[in-house]
């Protein structure tokens, strides 16, 4: 789904289409105009968030219970909210825009890129893991990761094979957990080490492994995007037209982005 390329202010009904999921791959850059204040606030807050994610990753074992709890607290804190806008739409919009602003700041050097990708991945991993099973599948489909969940009947018929192909699974977990059918080309690490069941070109991935695959995809996309931005850095920046309701129409500043 694509909006018109012209930079128009987005209002109303398109709200539902633009941010139809709480999580995204940040594939499309924001196409609206925002005020200088929002620009600044969004960027600073996301940066604070990423720095906190980084600190958490140092203080706690990543993905451990404590880590997850702390991250949960963080994301529900009031500072994550835009003043005066706490709707789901506002949250998602902020998430979207702030990510893209930081891309500009962090595309310049290898170190910056690596740092940014690492924190964004950790944040993404947590948020993806937090989704319900249905929302996970929705997310996958919306992002062209056409991964179907395996039906209960199929799981039953393949139960023994699934148990013997993935580490640490029992009959019970196979029944309870979701399995995803992923084209084998998207699960090469598991295929190479024969840690997954393959049938007709599809790898049957238990849900705790799907995160790895999605993360790989996330990292690849972000890495590519940063490389492109870096290349077009100065060109790109010229395109950002900020205007505010006050007298700052057409304000452009390169130095602004250096946080």
């Amino acid at each position, binding site marked *: 789904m694509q909006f018109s390329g012209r930079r128009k202010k987005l209002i109303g009904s398109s709200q539902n289409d633009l941010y139809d999921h709480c999580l995204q791959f940040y594939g499309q850059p924001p196409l609206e105009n925002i005020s200088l204040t929002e620009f600044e606030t969004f960027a600073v807050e996301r940066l604070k968030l990423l720095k906190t994610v980084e600190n958490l990753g140092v203080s706690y074992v990543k993905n451990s219970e404590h880590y997850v709890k702390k991250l949960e607290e963080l994301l529900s804190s009031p500072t994550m909210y835009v003043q005066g806008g706490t709707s789901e739409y506002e949250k998602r919009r902020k998430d979207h825009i702030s990510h893209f602003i930081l891309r500009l700041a962090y595309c310049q050097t290898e170190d910056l890129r690596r740092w940014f990708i690492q924190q964004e991945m950790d944040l993404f991993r947590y948020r993806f893991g937090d989704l319900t099973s249905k929302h996970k599948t929705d997310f996958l489909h919306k992002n062209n990761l056409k991964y179907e969940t395996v039906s209960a009947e199929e799981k039953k018929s393949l139960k023994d094979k699934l148990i*013997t*192909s993935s580490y640490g699974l029992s009959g019970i977990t196979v029944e309870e957990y979701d399995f995803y059918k992923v084209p*084998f*080309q998207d699960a*090469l690490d598991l295929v190479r080490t*024969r840690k997954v069941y*393959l*049938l*007709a*070109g599809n790898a049957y991935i238990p849900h705790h492994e799907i995160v790895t695959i999605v993360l790989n995809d996330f990292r690849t996309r972000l890495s590519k995007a940063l490389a492109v931005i870096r290349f077009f850095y100065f060109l790109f920046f010229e395109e950002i037209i900020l205007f505010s309701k006050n007298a700052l129409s057409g304000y452009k500043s390169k130095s602004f982005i250096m946080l």
Partner: protein
Amino acid sequence: MPTSDYDPACLPDLLPLYYRRLFPFSQYYRWLSYGGVSKNYFQNREFSFTLKDDIYVRYQSFTTQNELEKEMQKMVPYKVDIGAVYSHRPSQHNAVKSGSFQALEKELVFDIDMTDYDDVRRCCSAADICSKCWTLMIIAIRILDRALREDFGFHHLLWVYSGRRGVHCWVCDDAARKLSVAARSAVAEYLSLVKGGEETLRKVVLSDPIHPFINHSLSVVERYFQQYAIVEQDILGSKESVDKVLALLLTTHIKKDLTIYYQDEKNPMKRWDRLCALVEHKKSSIKKGGQYFDKEIMLQYCYPRLDVNVSKGVNHLLKSPFSVHPKTGRISVPIDLKELNTFDPFEVPTISLICEELERPRADEAEEDDVKDKENEQEAGERRRIRDYKRTSLAKYVKVFDRFLEAMARSWKGEMLKKSDLQKDF
């Protein structure tokens, strides 16, 4: 005697005849064009030729079937290899800006070479093969063919006898041709169970849980093991080979037990049964490890040994089907899997045989064919050639190739329809 005596010195005389009248150019071109679904697929394909005196030329490419024929008839290659489909015509690769000339697609290929089994076959070594060790190729084909079809979902596999000591597999599905280096290497690793070089004694190590792929492969190996390994290869016959087998058992008490038992029991089958019984007994013991020794031994002696490097590279060149093997004179012919049990590599026609068969007087061709020949020269030439190979032992192998192409053609049709639908080109 199906093979005329082949003498490599005759190649310079036989090859021109082969390329003029027997090589199935029309089917070959049809294969490599893949239905014309992708533009320039044939034109951007690299071929390499090995000419007389071992002169090797790469980056050969051709615009039409006719050009391919003329060049091969002119250059008379001793060997023909097929490489990748590139971003530009390989023959013009020097004119392309460095970095832009890239290998884009190629079939996924596997090369099973009998020399890789030298440490476990007693009948032959190096370039020799016999009907006893040929069983290893049958096992390899059955295991890999099943896995590539059932596990990986590929449909269009062409198995080819290399002409001397091995077999090749060309996986021609669209998805296979588009695989990255990483994906090819992952597929090859998934299919690899025998690991380690000369220094490694125990080349197969199994642990719980046993992956379904390994179980499938084991059931194939088990079908052949007793007759192939115990009877024909006699791996539990002489002291020397018994020692080799026992060296794979890490558990000393099993080794000791067997050494004593083998002093009296000389029957190899009974010896094997005892080994299996002891391993089975061990399984029920509390201590871990060694529960799969018997299976590991079977796999080490029989499981297919792949060269991952051959499969990995998109730009890797592999011997072409219908190429001649200069040392044996045998044609690299497609193998019909339905007749795999009766395939005999020593029955594969040599170039001398089929050239000789060509010279035999025509049995039934009537004058009506001559009338038809008055038409278009090329068509006539082609039809003559089709009649020609049909008179030789090459015919049945070209039929296998035809069936393979027909199956693929059905999928090309689907692709073309999809494409024209997308372009709204009704």
